[in-house]
């Protein structure tokens, strides 16, 4: 019997059985019950009104002929009133929908317009708002906090490059999807030099780029997408520099607006249907690299997004600009295009070259899509064998094994000669079952070595002196990394050295090998949650498992990931 069968049978319970269930089991928490009772009391207090909310009442009376005509007349009146209201609303609200202010954060929000609908008329009231420089600076530095979806046309140019970048973009912060078509024009001639189409969906980016005059330059690149969560947008939502100058202008915000004495709010105006502030200011060192001495920005007040920017030299020459058109925020109709595997095939058939690395990424993408598609979420379709098969074939490469069995990166797991020399006795190799590692003290690494032999921190620092900022990245440690090891804070060490594919839970760490070898009961006993597995799922596709092992492992993980 499958788990889903239990659900189906219970959902088909007749009234007699439903009654039995309700007598034997609570239907909700006490908190929820009390909340419902309070609502009932409120309803009873507002008596004299119809007994129930009538909005979903369905009339049981069949309408007679005259009622039909009266209804039509009433509908016509309502429709006209509604249309008039809508026109007023559109005029007042501008072309775009207002973004939802779900996470204002600063506590200094610009008051939103209050819309009062009274029968056939609609009045829009605007409370006086205090538009301060601090507010705009804060909004501009945290644009993503105020956005969910956006789309529009952007043109970006600065005088130190010969190209003007022009693009149409669509971005959904909630689903982490991005789509953009971008062209680079030669600034002087206006001739298109190269173009690209970019897609990012959960965790992966796919791009098609080409130089217009060189047919052989057509490339398809598939890699990690940076749009994996909302925080990723703090640097650059998509890897396309142009967006970092418009929708998320963090660097320019710091460069131009951080010094509040260097700029003023010169005006407010309706720009592209949005309420905007016009900012004008001077720039010092930051703008000098483009020979910009003063600038003008038109900023959307509610989101901090820059809809217009121009930087000028002393003689008023424009040395950099950002122009936008058709910018739209939080339109629920907006669907960001996501590329399908068939479309990638088609592009490749059109002559786009795909590198070996991108081809590998594509395979990962395929597996990923296959396993995590919505129809696969019914947990009972996953068959988990009682005994897991051998994970790898005999010819698997060493790197794969390393990532599978070790919780941390190699430089942390290595006992460097200078460190080893601090211990006189023969410390040898330990017998370790790598499938059982859940802590940094479970196997030999720099931290466990220092702990086991109680080596003083100063001795470690002296011994590791040559490794601090060494040129060879595999041997190099930063001061803060070494401090983390000496602090004894395992969580901090895992932040610095933990393998991405190993799953973290506080001070504990679970390698893919541990997850592979252990049962779902063990996951539960260790406090691993389905969310944690879902978060890490992507890394497990990389391993070069045998087919049988891959199926068994992914089935187990999927089963667990879907336990809610």
């Amino acid at each position, binding site marked *: *019997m499958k*788990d889903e*069968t*239990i*659900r189906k*049978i*219970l*959902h*088909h*319970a*007749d*009234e*007699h*059985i*439903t*009654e*039995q*269930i*309700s*007598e*034997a*089991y*609570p*239907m*909700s*928490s006490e*908190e*929820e*019950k009390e*909340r*419902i*009772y309070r*609502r*009932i*009391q409120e*309803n*009873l207090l507002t*008596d004299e009104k119809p*007994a*129930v*909310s009538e*909005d*979903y*009442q*369905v009339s049981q009376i069949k309408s007679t002929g005259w009622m039909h005509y009266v209804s039509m007349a009433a509908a016509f009146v309502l429709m006209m009133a509604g249309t008039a209201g809508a026109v007023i609303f559109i005029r007042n609200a501008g072309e775009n929908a207002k973004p939802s202010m779900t996470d204002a954060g600063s506590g200094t929000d610009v008051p939103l317009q209050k819309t009062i609908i009274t029968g056939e008329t609609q009045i829009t009231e605007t409370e006086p708002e205090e538009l301060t420089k601090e507010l705009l600076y804060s909004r501009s530095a945290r644009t993503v906090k105020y956005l969910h979806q956006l789309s529009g046309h952007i043109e970006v140019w600065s005088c130190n490059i010969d190209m003007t970048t022009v693009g149409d973009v669509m971005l959904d912060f909630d689903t982490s999807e991005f789509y953009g078509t971008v062209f680079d024009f030669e600034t002087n001639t206006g001739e298109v030099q190269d173009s690209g189409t970019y897609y990012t969906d959960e965790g992966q980016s796919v791009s098609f780029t080409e130089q217009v005059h060189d047919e052989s330059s057509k490339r398809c690149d598939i890699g990690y997408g940076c749009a994996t969560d909302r925080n990723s947008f703090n640097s650059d939502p998509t890897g396309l520099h142009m967006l970092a100058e418009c929708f998320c202008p963090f660097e320019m915000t710091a460069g131009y607006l951080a010094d509040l004495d260097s700029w003023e709010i010169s005006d407010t105006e309706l720009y592209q249907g949005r309420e905007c502030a016009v900012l004008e200011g001077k720039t010092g060192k930051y703008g000098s690299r483009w020979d910009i001495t003063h600038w003008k920005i038109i900023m959307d007040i509610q989101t901090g997004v820059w809809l217009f920017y121009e930087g000028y030299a002393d003689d008023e020459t424009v040395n950099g600009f950002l122009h936008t058109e058709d910018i739209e925020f939080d339109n629920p109709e907006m669907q960001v295009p996501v590329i399908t595997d068939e479309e990638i095939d088609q592009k490749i058939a059109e002559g786009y070259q795909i590198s070996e690395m991108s081809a590998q990424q594509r395979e990962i993408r395929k597996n990923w899509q296959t396993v995590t598609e919505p129809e696969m979420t019914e947990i009972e379709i996953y068959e988990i064998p009682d005994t897991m098969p051998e994970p790898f074939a005999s010819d698997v490469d060493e790197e794969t094994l390393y990532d599978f069995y070790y919780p941390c990166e190699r430089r942390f797991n290595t006992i460097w000669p200078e460190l080893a020399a601090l211990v006189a006795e023969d410390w040898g190799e330990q017998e370790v079952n790598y499938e059982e590692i859940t802590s940094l003290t479970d196997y030999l690494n720099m931290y466990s070595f220092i702990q086991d032999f109680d080596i003083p921190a100063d001795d470690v620092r002296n011994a590791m002196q040559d490794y601090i900022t060494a040129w060879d990245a595999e041997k190099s440690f930063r001061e803060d990394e070494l401090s983390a090891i000496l602090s004894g804070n395992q969580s901090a060490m895992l932040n610095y050295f933990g393998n991405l594919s190993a799953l973290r839970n506080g001070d504990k760490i679970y390698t893919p090998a541990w997850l592979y070898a252990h049962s*779902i*009961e063990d996951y*539960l*006993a260790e*406090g691993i*949650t*389905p969310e944690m597995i879902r978060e890490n799922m992507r890394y497990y596709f990389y391993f070069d498992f045998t087919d049988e092992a891959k199926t068994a492992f992914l089935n187990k993980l999927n089963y667990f990931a879907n*336990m*809610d």
Partner: protein
Amino acid sequence: MTEQEIRSLMYQDREKGNRALFDTYYHYVYAIVFRKVNGTGSREDVEECVIDVFTEVMRNFSCIENGSLKAYLGTAARNKAINMCRYLSAKSRQTISIDSEDFSELPSEQNIETSIEQSEQTQKLLDCIHSLGEPDSVIIIQKYFLDRNSIEIARILNMNPITVRSRAFRAVKRLKQILSDAGITL
């Protein structure tokens, strides 16, 4: 509290009577509404509907003189839930299947037979769930009848969500074993 006690309380002290009515029949009304609305509406819709049922019954209590109070509440809950489903379906431009039980039509002989079989099957399953004992039986009902996730169940049972998840997993295993031992194939 018996129906008679609730009725007398209603006449003596309406507020206390309302509370007694609510406490006695809350789970019953919730279960009926949930069963009907689930799949069409959200949990909030279920709550709204439960609120409307009680509000209406409490307001019009003086008119309910004859018959069983429980049966009256059951009918009110059922009707409100059906109306809610129709409203929600219309709102989302869904169509209600002509096969839906919400459309009252005379059941065919075959339907009755299937329905009886289903009821027997559900009863057997419910008996086995009862035999798991608490809190596992509660977890199974919350998870599979009420579609609650482990965090919500944890709140109801005052447990850790991880414990709930863990117990649910083991409880399902045990349930399968109990069903298998009893020779019940679902």
